[in-house]
């Protein structure tokens, strides 16, 4: 589904990704871990198409299409979803408007008709109930005045409504108390499907107690230095990242 080969990218004059390769297949859950500044968030932003990151080499394809040629909205319509580490507050743009416009953009791309108001509301209510969200959030500005936990739930709500093929969740666990973390993790688990891939970008292994990944990768200085199964995450929890970095450099 997602094939990244020897990808290099910079922001401004700083090179952040330095030859990153990653292969993600449908149905798989991957966790990308690594110390601060290793390039985890950059990878997520580059896959989503953020204009501030300049790809300087390598390839990234999504279901055979050159991802790097596509505008951010085209990637979304193809089925790529980025759950933001810091969801943006957009006062004045209604949450329901965004959800509906997003669902319809995706449906139009798939050659389906627009969702009607009744159907939309029914779907939104159902997904919100699953995430333990009050429906009043539909009528608020996007993330406007939301708490940290509410913002992250709102990201998962968008993912649930959009039903992406590939979801990259950037530090979805950061800033969450245990109840919010459980609710978000349950939401993500309910969205695991054989035709959907999920990439979790996380600093701590805490999230992986609730969402069990098939693969764990360690990112350091812009490339993956170790891949393994979920036991690698436990090993990192115990030993930290330094032993791996020393091994990689040595």
């Amino acid at each position: 589904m997602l094939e990244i080969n020897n990808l290099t990218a910079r922001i401004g004059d700083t090179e952040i990704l330095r030859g990153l390769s990653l292969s993600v297949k449908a149905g798989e859950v991957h966790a990308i871990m690594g110390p601060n500044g290793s390039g985890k968030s950059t990878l997520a932003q580059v896959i989503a198409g953020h204009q501030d990151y300049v790809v300087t080499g390598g390839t990234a394809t999504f279901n055979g299409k050159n991802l790097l040629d596509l505008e951010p909205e085209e990637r979304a319509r193809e089925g790529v979803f980025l759950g933001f580490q810091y969801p943006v507050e957009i006062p004045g743009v209604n949450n329901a408007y965004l959800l509906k416009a997003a669902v319809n953009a995706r449906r139009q791309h798939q050659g389906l008709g627009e969702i009607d108001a009744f159907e939309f509301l029914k779907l939104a209510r159902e997904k919100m109930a699953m995430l333990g969200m009050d429906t009043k959030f539909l009528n608020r500005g996007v993330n406007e005045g939301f708490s940290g936990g509410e913002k992250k739930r709102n990201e998962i709500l968008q993912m649930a409504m959009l039903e992406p093929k590939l979801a990259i969740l950037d530090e979805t666990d950061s800033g969450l108390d245990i109840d919010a973390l459980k609710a978000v993790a349950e939401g993500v688990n309910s969205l695991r499907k054989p035709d959907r891939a999920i990439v979790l970008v996380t600093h701590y292994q805490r999230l992986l107690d609730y969402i069990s990944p098939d693969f764990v990768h360690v990112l350091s200085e812009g490339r993956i230095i170790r891949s393994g199964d979920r036991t690698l995450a436990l090993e990192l929890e115990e030993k930290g990242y330094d032993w791996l970095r020393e091994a990689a450099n040595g």
Partner: protein
Amino acid sequence: MKPAMLSIDSLKSAVLRLPDDVLSATRAAALANLDEHGLPTVQHEDWKYTDLRPAIDISNRWLADGAARPTGGDLSEAIVSVTGSIDADWLVIANGAIDMSHFNSSPGIEIERFSESAAPFVMDRPLADLNAALLQDGLRVQVHAATEKPLGLLIIDDANSGAAVTQVNVEIMVAPGCDVEIVEYQTSSGRDDHYANSVVTLDIGEAAHTGYVRIQERRIGHVQTGRLSVSVGKDARFAMASYDLGGGLVRNDVDIDLGAKGADLVCNGLYLASDGQHIDNHIRIDHRVGPASSSQEFRGILNGRCRCVWNGKAIVHKGADGTDAKQANHNLLLSDNAEIDAKPELEIYADDVKCSHGTTVGQLDEAALFYLRSRGLGRHEAIQALTRAFAADLVGRAPVSAAKTAIAALVDARLAELTLERTS
């Protein structure tokens, strides 16, 4: 460069050709004032950013051509389109001529024409003098009781038979204790140059409440200068909002006089401009006594090569203690070629006052834009959503509720068009 002077000789002969009637003396006095002072140039502080030469040029061509009242094309369809969009009792002035056929008389409203009664009071301002010098008629509206529907004032022009100029003058008096809503709607069409100069005088009686909406969607390229002079009585409330969506060169002068205790004023405005537009809002609020409060909030969205001006002046006169005056102006610039000249101004001669002002000029929030696009919204749709959000608050607070839906639709349509070309 086109001459910067209004041709007074041709103006004189045009005024002399008008029939001798109840307005003759007023026209002569205004003409004498104009002859002495002329029209302002960019040398005047109040006109520093707005050059009236396009208005002068159209006027001179129209005067040279015989200064006939423009006939224009058939406006009936355009009139119905406006009057059908806002449920109001409409007074229509089409190509300068009064058309009462869209007005349903209401027991609370009394209307007379200047030509059949008396001339209006003319404020000593150059454009008011120009208006009065060429005035052939006008309306005096007295509101004695609350009306069921808002009072509509549609000023509509069509220029298809050479350069044309129209003068509109309306006086509205709101009786003490009376609640009324008013919609002023200015629009124009036609391939030829057009200059519309309007004067609206509004006198709000003691403890009366008036909501006033101004919608301006003239053809881009047409010139409008519009004056609104308001006096607000004791314990009276005046809430206005202007929506400038079209026009080439547009200058709005809003003068509000708070001459009695307890007056409460809200003066808001939204201006949307793109290539070839120049929209200038000059507000002057005179706090003569206290306590009284005034609040201004203007917002602008600019794209392409255009210029907007906001000058919000509040003068707190000596002795106007207990004055509360607020000014805010926020601008969103979508292009490097767009210019905003924002000038908050407070002149305070009283001791016990609360005054504040704030101005911001910003660009589109790139993080928000990326967020929306990452959800599948196209770039244009995302920019539209963000600009609509910037304008939404002022649309929602339109002080005439019957006009809100129409204003929202006009703003949406204008933003859809304005955001299409993003030059940087």
